[in-house]
């Protein structure tokens, strides 16, 4: 579905990202995991053409030869800061993608109602401005807006990063269900190991612009050879066992 071949991103003389190669199949839920500045957001923007690679090839199935802005119209993108247009109502925000794709008004309107329902928001939210919504509601609208023009691919840049843990968990689970139901291909950037483990069926760990591991969560959690990866996986495991111990009536160590 998505193929990055020997891609790299250079700024002046310094190479910030790559070169590396990555191939993502249809229906996969891939998490790009790593600390800030490791190149995961740049990788996402290479895929939809917001930030084309300095060298190498990006190929998205069915979009060969499309201009970058036309390619972007067919790929859903959920932004780290949501980026809802503050002067448009929720319904208008959701309608932007279909408008760009040239849908008629009736189809756009019914799609808007359908999407609010899909992301579990009441229909009357559609008439409100983004400023009148809570952070979690705005994130749901961000997901709905990205899905509006019926993309097959969803790119998500730390989509639930700024939310409280309860909302975050709920949204993550809801999105995972949507991913399954709509048969999407999802690439999600995150720095949260637990989130990556619980949502993705494949985790790509990046460090300093390179891929250091690329495997299913279970493989990474098992005794992975790379010490850095082992250290990364140790944290959630230790947290989980401590929480378990507390639940069994233990005390803090």
């Amino acid at each position, binding site marked *: 579905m998505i193929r990055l071949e020997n891609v790299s991103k250079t700024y002046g003389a310094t190479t910030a990202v790559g070169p590396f190669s990555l191939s993502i199949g249809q229906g996969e839920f891939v998490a790009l995991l790593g600390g800030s500045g490791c190149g995961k957001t740049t990788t996402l923007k290479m895929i939809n053409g917001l930030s084309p690679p300095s060298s190498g090839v990006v190929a998205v199935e069915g979009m060969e030869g499309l201009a970058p802005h036309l390619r972007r119209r067919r790929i859903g993108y959920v932004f780290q800061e949501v980026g809802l*247009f503050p002067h448009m109502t929720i319904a208008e925000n959701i309608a932007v993608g279909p408008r760009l794709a040239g849908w008629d008004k009736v189809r756009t309107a019914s799609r808007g109602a359908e999407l609010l329902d899909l992301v579990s928001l009441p229909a009357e939210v559609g008439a409100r401005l983004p400023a009148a919504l809570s952070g979690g509601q705005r994130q749901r609208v961000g997901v709905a807006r990205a899905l509006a023009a019926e993309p097959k691919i969803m790119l998500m840049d730390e989509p639930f990063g700024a939310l409280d843990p309860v909302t975050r968990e709920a949204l993550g689970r809801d999105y995972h269900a949507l991913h399954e139901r709509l048969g999407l291909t999802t690439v999600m950037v995150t720095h949260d190991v637990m989130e990556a483990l619980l949502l993705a069926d494949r985790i790509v760990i990046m460090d300093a612009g390179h891929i250091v591991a690329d495997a299913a969560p279970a493989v990474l959690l098992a005794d992975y050879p790379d010490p850095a990866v082992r250290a990364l996986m140790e944290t959630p495991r230790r947290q989980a066992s401590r929480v378990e111990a507390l639940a069994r009536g233990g005390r803090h160590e």
Partner: protein
Amino acid sequence: MNDSLAAAWRLLPNYLAQHVLLSLCALVLGFAISLPLAVAASRSAAVRWPSLFIASLIQTIPSLALLALFYPLLLALSSVSLAWFGKGFTALGFAPSLMALTLYSMLPILRNGVTGILGVDPAAVEAARGMGMTDRQRLTWVELPLAAPVIMAGVRTAAVWTIGAATLSTPVGQTSLGNYIFSGLQTENWVYVLFGCAASAVLALAADQLLGLIESGLAHRRSWRVWAGAIGLIAGAAAALSPLVFAAPAAGDYRIGAKNFSEQYILAELMAQRLRAAGAGVTLKEDLGSATAYRALAAGEIDAYVDYSGTLWANVLGRKDNPGRAAVLKALTTGLKRRDGVVVLGPVGFENAYALAMRADRAKDLRIAGIDDLARRAPTLALGSDLEFLSRPEWAALRGAYGLSFRKLTSYQPTFMYRALAGGEADVISAFSSDGRIAADHLVVLADPLHALPPYDAVILISPKRAGDARLRAALAPLIGRISVGAMREANYSLDRDSDKQTAAQAARALAKSAGLAAP
């Protein structure tokens, strides 16, 4: 007082209409230029810094000077166009005012436009790009709507500046609310000055409030406020402009010019009254600068006005000699005809000479009767002059002939110059011999034994375009040789005195009567 106020009200529809038309056109044009420029500037730093720098630079030019500079520029362009395409255009009035005010209105719109567009939340801009909007869609769907309140704030500032600065378009021949201020300042008609200031302030405030309504409507997404503001603006502009539609000057109207002092207003009114009595339509172009008036006549932008032989002799023909009153008139008649095709219809009878004047008691104390006596005492005395005297060839001639060197030289509006003389801030002033205040203020005109100053016969000039116009000549010819210096002084004083002021039209009627001029 009440007469002045009533006269001011009568002039309001026309002045306001002209003022609104000029300000509106300048704002619309300024907006049409500034907004695309602001968009370009927000996209590229290479456009941003030069355009903001130039717009700021324009703002530092005093607005009066900016307006004045466009007249010679357009005149040069007009003569180029005349030479190349066989068709010139009017360099006076609306065009130079519009250009200067347009430039003047640009900075706030440009600056707020750039600030507004660059200030749009980067997350919204990234989302627009990420969703696949083109540059133009991002601009019209996201950036401009979000920057609109900031841009409107710039438009508000521009509107207030433009409406205020439009009062300064009067001296380049564009009628505006400034006509009240400039003519009021000349004739010390403070009712006019205050009326002009108040009218332009009320206009500026009204425009500001209505634009403010639109701005707050955009900021708070209340479309009824936007509509209310827009409808208010359109209705107000339409009401203000309606006199132009219903009372548009006929194309065949005679345009009579006047420079910016009482005598000129009265003589222009006198000519206008005679033409109207003969059934012709007349438009007055008042408050023209001295050099502007002649050039406007030569270019056919005004049809007739009164100028002075000495002024034309020195400034137009560039002569420094003084062959005497009759010889100057004769040489002017042939000289102006040959040079510009301008017709000297003839002298109206009185002289309005540049002269040096002092208070009679002071001249007596210092034993000064002529300019030769003055030259000896000059290093201890202060000279007050009108705004142009010190840069005129007459002053150079006087200074050269008598070796004048004053302790201090100060320029005033004529009105304030007489005040300065009365108050002792000036010992000697550059007076005009037909000024009614010479007798009224007990002044003496100093003799000029060396004949350094040329004669200043008031002469009626007719533009080359109207040279063969029999109706114009027939209406104005009876004025030739009929107005004495005494009658003119009296008429001038009826405008310049502090109390019981008359309007120029009243003074012109009285003057016609005392000169024994029957209606044609």
